[in-house]
């Protein structure tokens, strides 16, 4: 293990940017966006420098650590503020800072008309810092700080336009659902400490194979809950669609490329836990599979371009989680899909932002159409992303997604078949809804109002899109040629159980996947390109479409099962506190008062009744003597 003193700058630079911009206030309005971008870019520079240093070192010395200071030290509970940069985190560091910087650049132009642009950049920098802390922390507790930090940044950014009540509600919903996930992470940390006496990654890895499987399963499930919260996985997926209330660059950065993939990071980072807890691992796979179908189905019905993309994100992360749940063979593919997805999805979101930018912030795809002519660059970059997500060779998605499908089939037995088929169907549906997005947005006839004047975005916006498009084209090949990423990550994962039994040859899987994609595309074409698309969503649709439009009833379910009973409980408790507990207290007071006023009747002012009372008292006294002196 190498130590370094420069890791902290990765986090400190964007953090300093955020603090400066937030404390500086209006004074920094003029140059705030430039500072924010510069901080993010310099962090990217540090990341690249670290990568080069890492490449220089032999494999076993590649991980770098830095201890900043002693954070918490109570009894056996010792946590240092320590950073760890290894082969896994460097991928994330570069993705976060790289894509992050591009999105900073994009936002300079995208947010140029917003008077709070400086604040936006402050939040973005805060997010970058928190996300870096998340991937760089060397213990679960440090990760937790970043984990909630990105939740906070996400909350602030979703609610950036919080003067609109719906947006404010969306941000609150995201934070609260994330907190449920955070609770899972808390439990995982507690279990780790209670069973292994440590919460650092290294410590847990060292002790994991001694610990009881029950404890590890519990920890694994809790980590899965955490991942589900952060990565919008079933059953905590409901917030992601609403999170699109944030400015589009935020959706691109946080809710597509980086933060939502933190769950995948957490599961791959905790590989030593899941490898020893098959039940938890199986649950991971199930959650991934459900979510990938769930997201895909929602995606087919959404008319809001950002929500369609969000559903797609959910589905793609489902793929990653599924891969991560497949054990050592899947981790690398999960990460690879994560990286390629980071490129193409961020690119597409920025494309969507570009379209909205030209269309007066209209998000309804049914009001688009024939934009290809007006926004050629956006069309091309979006199109490249589209091909990538479909998994058309040789674009990035082909490499990463095919690997996952293949690995799923190879999981063995009925599990393998089910997972394989699920991923294949998912690929087909993905192809369907992405094609639908393409057709509705860029081809066909124009359906927008006359007051919209679609135009291509300025270079500050299309440049990042272009860079991301290049990434969507090439990253898959680069990462997988010769198993580059696999080998790079190999030392981290316990790969001893290498069971290379192929159920299907890779080429067969690819062929099947491409066939499914072709079917999906064909259906979309027949449904949207060959017939006129109405500019309002048709009402006479099947019940399935209606359900899908309502996000498969996820909000209704949450409302009915959690929110309403919760509200009822709150109301009941508030009333009970007033009536029962405070009532009991006031009752004591009332009793004293009423007994007082009852006794007051005795004080009628007549001497003779007082005398009678004295007599009664004397009787009591003598009676007592009578009883006592037997």
């Amino acid at each position, binding site marked *: 293990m190498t130590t370094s003193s420069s890791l902290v700058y990765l986090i400190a630079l964007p953090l300093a940017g955020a603090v400066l911009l937030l404390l500086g206030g209006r004074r920094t309005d003029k140059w705030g966006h430039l500072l924010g971008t510069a901080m993010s870019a310099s962090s990217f520079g540090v990341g690249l420098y670290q990568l080069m240093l890492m490449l220089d070192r032999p494999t076993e010395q590649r991980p770098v650590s830095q201890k900043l200071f002693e954070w918490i030290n109570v009894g056996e509970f010792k946590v240092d503020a320590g950073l760890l940069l290894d082969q896994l985190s460097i991928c994330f560091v570069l993705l976060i800072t790289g894509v992050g910087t591009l999105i900073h650049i994009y936002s300079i132009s995208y947010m140029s008309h917003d008077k709070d642009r400086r604040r936006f950049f402050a939040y973005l920098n805060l997010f970058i810092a928190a996300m870096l802390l998340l991937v760089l922390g060397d213990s679960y507790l440090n990760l937790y700080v970043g984990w909630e930090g990105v939740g906070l940044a996400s909350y602030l950014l979703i609610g950036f336009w919080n003067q609109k009540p719906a947006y404010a509600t969306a941000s609150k919903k995201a934070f609260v659902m994330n907190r449920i996930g955070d609770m899972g992470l808390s439990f995982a940390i507690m279990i780790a400490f209670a069973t292994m006496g440590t919460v650092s990654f290294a410590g847990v890895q060292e002790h994991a194979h001694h610990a009881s499987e029950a404890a590890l399963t519990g920890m694994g499930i809790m980590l899965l809950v955490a991942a589900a919260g952060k990565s919008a996985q079933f059953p905590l997926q409901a917030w992601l669609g609403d999170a699109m209330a944030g400015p589009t660059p935020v959706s691109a950065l946080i809710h597509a490329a980086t933060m939502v993939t933190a769950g995948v990071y957490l599961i791959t980072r905790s590989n030593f836990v899941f490898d020893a807890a098959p039940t938890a691992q199986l649950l991971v796979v199930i959650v991934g599979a459900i979510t990938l179908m769930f997201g895909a189905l929602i995606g087919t019905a959404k008319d809001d371009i950002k929500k369609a993309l969000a559903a797609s994100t959910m589905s793609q992360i489902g793929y990653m989680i599924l891969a991560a749940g497949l054990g050592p063979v899947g981790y690398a593919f999960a990460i690879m899909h994560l990286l390629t997805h980071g490129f193409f999805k961020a690119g597409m979101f920025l494309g969507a932002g570009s379209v909205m930018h030209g269309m007066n912030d209209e998000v309804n795809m049914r009001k688009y159409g024939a934009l290809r002519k007006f926004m050629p660059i956006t069309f091309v970059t979006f199109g490249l992303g589209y091909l990538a997500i479909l998994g058309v060779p040789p674009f990035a998605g082909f490499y990463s997604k095919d690997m996952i499908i293949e690995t799923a089939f190879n999981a063995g037995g009925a599990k393998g078949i089910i997972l394989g088929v699920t991923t294949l169907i998912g690929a087909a549906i993905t192809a369907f809804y992405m094609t639908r997005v393409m057709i509705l947005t860029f081809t066909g006839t124009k359906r927008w109002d006359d007051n919209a004047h679609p135009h291509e975005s300025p270079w500050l916006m299309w440049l990042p899109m272009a860079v991301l498009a290049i990434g969507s084209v090439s990253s898959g090949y680069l990462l997988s040629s010769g198993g580059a990423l696999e080998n790079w990550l190999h030392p981290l994962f316990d790969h001893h159980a290498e069971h290379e039994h192929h159920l299907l040859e890779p080429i067969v899987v690819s062929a099947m996947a491409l066939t499914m994609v072709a079917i999906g595309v064909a259906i979309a074409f027949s449904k949207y390109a060959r017939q006129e698309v109405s500019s309002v969503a048709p009402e006479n649709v099947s019940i399935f479409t209606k359900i899908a439009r309502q996000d498969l009833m996820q909000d209704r379910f949450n409302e009915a099962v959690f929110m309403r009973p919760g509200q009822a409980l709150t109301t009941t408790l508030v009333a009970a506190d007033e009536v029962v507990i405070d009532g009991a207290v006031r009752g004591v007071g009332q009793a004293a008062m009423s007994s007082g006023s009852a006794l007051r009747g005795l*004080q*009628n*002012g007549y001497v*003779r009744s007082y*005398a*009678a009372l004295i*007599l009664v008292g004397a009787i009591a006294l003598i009676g007592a003597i009578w009883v006592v002196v037997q």
Partner: protein
Amino acid sequence: MNAANYLYISALLFTIGAVGVVVRRNAIVVFMCIELMLNAANLSFVTFSRINGNLDGQVMAFFTMVVAACEVVVGLAIIVTIYRSRRSASVDDASLLKR
């Protein structure tokens, strides 16, 4: 002759006096009942003195008489004063304690 008999009669007189205090409204009668109670007590004292064979009880009765005399003097003065202002000797009319 059992000296305890005097004690029984003393108890009876005391009780009667107590009832009188409660049931009679005329302040003067109430006072007389109080005197009756004091006298009953005195009878007990005297009896105890006899039982114990010393004069302490009688001395005590003597003191009681003095105190009773004081009480009568003051009490009657009060009754006269009340009567002067309220034209009534009924204790119920002087129910000022309540207000």
